[in-house]
C-alpha cells in the first residue's frame, strides 16, 4: 500500500521503508533455513582448501553432465576428509557428518575419488578398508575391505554407497577409511591438504520424507 495507507488485504499499516526491508530480510533468512531444515545458520569451522573444493565440484558437474548411472537427485553432498594417523604406507581418512544430515537424508549413491601419484609399472594393489568404532572399546573394527588394482597415476573411484548408508544408521556418523599402498609408493596422500588431488566423496541423496499416515 502507498505510504500512510493500510494494506488492503491484511489491514496492517504500511511499514517505513527501513522496517519493511528488515522484515523482508528476516523473512528471507527464516524461509531459507526452514527449507534447508536447519535450526540456524551453520558456523563453518574449517572450510576446505579451494583447490580441493574446485576439483570435487568439477567431478560433480561431470557426473551430472554425463548422467549415466548417477540417479538425478535434488541433493548432492561433497565430503572432504581430514587426514588422521598414518604410517609410511598407509593413512586414515576421517569423514564427518552432522546428525542433522544423517537423520534427514537418504543416500542413493556415493563414490570415493582417490588420486594416485605413484609411478606405476603395471597394475599395483591398493587396499581400502572401512573402519568403524568398536562399541566395546576404543579400538576400531574393519567393516569392509576392498583391494583395488591401480593401473597407474591418476584418479580411481570406488562405490561407497553401502558404507555411507550403514554409517548414517549409527549414532555417531563418523567414517574412517584406511588406504594401504605398496611399500615403495610413499604416502598415499598428497603432502599438502589443499592439494587439488585431495580425496573426496560425492554422494547423491534425497531428503528423507517423514513417515506419513494417509487417512482415506
Amino acid at each position: 500500500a502507498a505510504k500512510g495507507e493500510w494494506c488492503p488485504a491484511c489491514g496492517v499499516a504500511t511499514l517505513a521503508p527501513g522496517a519493511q526491508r528488515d522484515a523482508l530480510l528476516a523473512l528471507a533468512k527464516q524461509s531459507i533455513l526452514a527449507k534447508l531444515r536447519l535450526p540456524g545458520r551453520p558456523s563453518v569451522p574449517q572450510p576446505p582448501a579451494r583447490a580441493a573444493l574446485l576439483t570435487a565440484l568439477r567431478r560433480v558437474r561431470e557426473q551430472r553432465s554425463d548422467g549415466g548411472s548417477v540417479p538425478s537427485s535434488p541433493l548432492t553432498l561433497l565430503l572432504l576428509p581430514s587426514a588422521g594417523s598414518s604410517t609410511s604406507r598407509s593413512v586414515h581418512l576421517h569423514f564427518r557428518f552432522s546428525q542433522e544430515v544423517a537423520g534427514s537424508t537418504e543416500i542413493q549413491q556415493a563414490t570415493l575419488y582417490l588420486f594416485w601419484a605413484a609411478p606405476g609399472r603395471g597394475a599395483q594393489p591398493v587396499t581400502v578398508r572401512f573402519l568403524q568404532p568398536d562399541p566395546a572399546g576404543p579400538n576400531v573394527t574393519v567393516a569392509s575391505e576392498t583391494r583395488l588394482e591401480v593401473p597407474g597415476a591418476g584418479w580411481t573411484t570406488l562405490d561407497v554407497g553401502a558404507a555411507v548408508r550403514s554409517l548414517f544408521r549409527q549414532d555417531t556418523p563418523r567414517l574412517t577409511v584406511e588406504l594401504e599402498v605398496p611399500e615403495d609408493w610413499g604416502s598415499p596422500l598428497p603432502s599438502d591438504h589443499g592439494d587439488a588431488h585431495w580425496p573426496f566423496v560425492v554422494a547423491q541423496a534425497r531428503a528423507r520424507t517423514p513417515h506419513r499416515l494417509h487417512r482415506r
Partner: protein
Amino acid sequence: GVDCGADSRMCCRQEFFVDFKEIGWEDWIIQPEGYHMNFCAGLCPLHMAGIPGLAASFHTAVLNRIKAASAAAAVDSCCVPTQRRPLSLLYYDRDSNIVKTDIPDMIVDSCGCT
C-alpha cells in the same frame, strides 16, 4: 505478469534482492551471492480477476463486463505468484561438508490476480 514501477498500484511483481554478504551469510553459502526474494503486491479489483490466465477473447470481454457491472457487490481477488523457479544453493554444513541442493518454488518470476 507486470513488474512494479515507482507508482504501481495494481498487482505486480516487486523485485527484492537479498545480498548474502549484507546479512553475513557469505561465509557458509558458497553460491549464489544472493537470493531474489521477489514478491507480489498491489490491487486486484474485480475486473482484473483471472488476469493473466484468460486468453484475450470474446469470453474475456464478456466476463470483464459482468465483473465490472457487479463490482459494487464483489470482493477483490488476490495478487499471487503465477510463475516460480527453484533456488539452487551450494553451502557448507557445520561439518564443513558441501551440500548442493535445489529448493523448489523459491523465486517468483511473475504475478497475477486470482
